[in-house]
């Protein structure tokens, strides 16, 4: 991929404008709750893009990815809350969170270098659970994580002396806290997208894909597969760590139950449903899997009320049912994901 072709500029400007006005329009039309959904969409896109490096590029199936999100979130919570009485600035904690999560990525990667596929999946799944269980139980004998009660009253991110959790009025428009966070999250998500695109089309990115395609051939080509795999784990984890820190500051509360296996599975679904290894596909996957379930949660009750006069099925149960059906349908009819890499297109044109 050469640098952005000039005819892509109108499209990019359009996307930029859409991203900029989205929270204002959504906030006015659907209310703050939906801006909050957009915030989470941006967070999950960051997570999905991080996992995409490990699973999509390097082909290493990781079922415990949410652990790195947890590491980032707890690091933020511990360093910026009354729990230890520490109030470090977010701009110091977020990079630190990326680094610490990256270190955890290497810790996970190092013992699993010889594993692939199912075996790697089992070990990473265990790793994810270990982190969560540690967080749950590290309140005794020394109280570090405050156990299942979690850590509350976490400091919000402060920008130019203004905490993002508080509303601000600019040019007659009131920007609520969730809207301000939206801009922060989208900006960082764009940085993550940019890094992902640059990495994909580089010497390192090619080495990752080579390992995914054939590890033995990659070794024979002189790729030090150990280092290159560890790098994939570390890079993926550090994105998770940043997203975790943002999550903690946004919620102002963290507890172990936010980091269960289902969360790892959701992020993996975003990657797989969207199109493994294809950045626009992964973004689409993240967006759909954050917004659709919410829309369903809000819509299922009223729709049933209108059709049958009463709510027959609990929207929450129905949501998981339809989610499962959608997954099966996509895997049957679009096994490469909703928006896979356009390899076959390139081929037809030659």
């Amino acid at each position: 991929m050469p640098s952005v072709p000039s005819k892509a500029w109108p499209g990019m400007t359009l996307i930029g404008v859409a991203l900029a006005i989205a929270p204002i329009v959504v906030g006015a039309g659907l209310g703050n709750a939906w801006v909050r959904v957009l915030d989470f969409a941006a967070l999950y896109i960051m997570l999905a893009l991080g996992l995409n490096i490990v699973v999509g590029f390097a082909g290493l199936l990781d079922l415990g990815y949410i652990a790195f999100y947890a590491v980032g979130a707890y690091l933020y919570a511990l360093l910026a809350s009354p729990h230890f009485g520490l109030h470090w600035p977010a701009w110091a904690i977020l990079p630190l969170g990326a680094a610490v999560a990256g270190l955890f990525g290497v810790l996970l990667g190092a013992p699993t270098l010889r594993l692939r596929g199912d075996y790697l999946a089992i070990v990473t799944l265990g790793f994810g659970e270990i982190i969560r269980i540690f967080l749950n139980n590290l309140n005794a004998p020394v109280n570090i994580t405050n156990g299942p009660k979690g850590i509350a009253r976490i400091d919000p991110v402060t920008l130019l002396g203004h905490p993002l959790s508080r509303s601000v009025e600019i040019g007659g428009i009131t920007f609520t806290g969730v809207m301000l966070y939206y801009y922060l999250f989208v900006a960082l998500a764009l940085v993550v997208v940019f890094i992902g695109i640059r990495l994909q089309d580089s010497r390192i990115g090619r080495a990752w894909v080579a390992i995914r395609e054939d590890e033995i051939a990659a070794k024979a080509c002189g790729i030090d597969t150990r280092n290159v795999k560890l790098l994939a784990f570390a890079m993926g984890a550090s994105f998770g760590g940043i997203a975790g820190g943002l999550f903690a500051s946004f919620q102002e509360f963290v507890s172990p139950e936010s980091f269960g296996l289902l969360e790892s599975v959701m992020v993996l679904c975003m990657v797989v449903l969207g199109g493994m290894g294809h950045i626009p596909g992964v973004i689409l996957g993240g967006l759909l899997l954050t917004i659709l379930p919410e829309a369903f949660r809000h819509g299922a009750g009223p729709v049933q009320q209108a059709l049958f006069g009463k709510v027959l099925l609990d929207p929450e149960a129905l949501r998981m049912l339809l989610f499962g059906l959608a997954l099966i349908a996509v895997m049957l009819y679009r096994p490469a994901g909703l928006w896979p890499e356009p390899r076959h297109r390139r081929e037809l044109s030659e």
Partner: protein
Amino acid sequence: MSAVLLDARGVSKYFGGVQALKDVSLTILEGEIYGLIGPNGAGKTTFFNVLTGLYPRDAGEVTFVGHPLKLGTPHEVAKAGIARTFQNIRLFANMTALENVMVGRHLRTGAGVIGAVLRDPATRTEEAAILRRAEELLHYVGIGDRAGAIARHLSYGDQRRLEIARALATEPKLLALDEPAAGMNATETAALKGLIEGLRADGLTVLLIEHDVKLVMGLCDRVAVLDYGEKIAEDVPANVRNDSKVIEAYLGA
């Protein structure tokens, strides 16, 4: 007499109780095409895999360009200057032909994550050089017009060529080809022979495992014969052809 490029001394390899390689010693000279032949199961590919670091060895030493070769670490072997192809072609199937060769340049280039993200002038220059070299190599092996094709969609013969191009991208001193003519028809084999002769003419040393005895005898400067993991002959093709032990190994006692 040319200088010694590779000197293997007493290489042994066991698989459980089976000794796949028994004290194999051989010497490859700079600039020659060295053939390694033998009946099925004689240990040719095992020797290859030990030499290129894929299998750990149980005994023996290999000296390459005067330095001991770090066996058991394929990327170190590649770095030292031995590149290989595989009997059952191992390409990066979903990458383009061009990308396959670009991966081969990994070893001789150095851009890391920061270079990839910032795309500073040094990284851009390096990327351009990788691309240029990969294109040159595709042309060299005769598939320059297939650069954009996905590897797994290339014809069998072109896949073989692509694998050779990828191996050449690592700048080897010794190119080890594991049965490159397997599954090829007569025309493709003749073209392959031309390609390998071209490599020698350009100063590369080639180690060739081959079943096609005619190809080996017509191409190689010297030939070693393995049988049941032991080297039973090492000489110029004309002498090997008439060696009684070799005839016995191939035709049975």
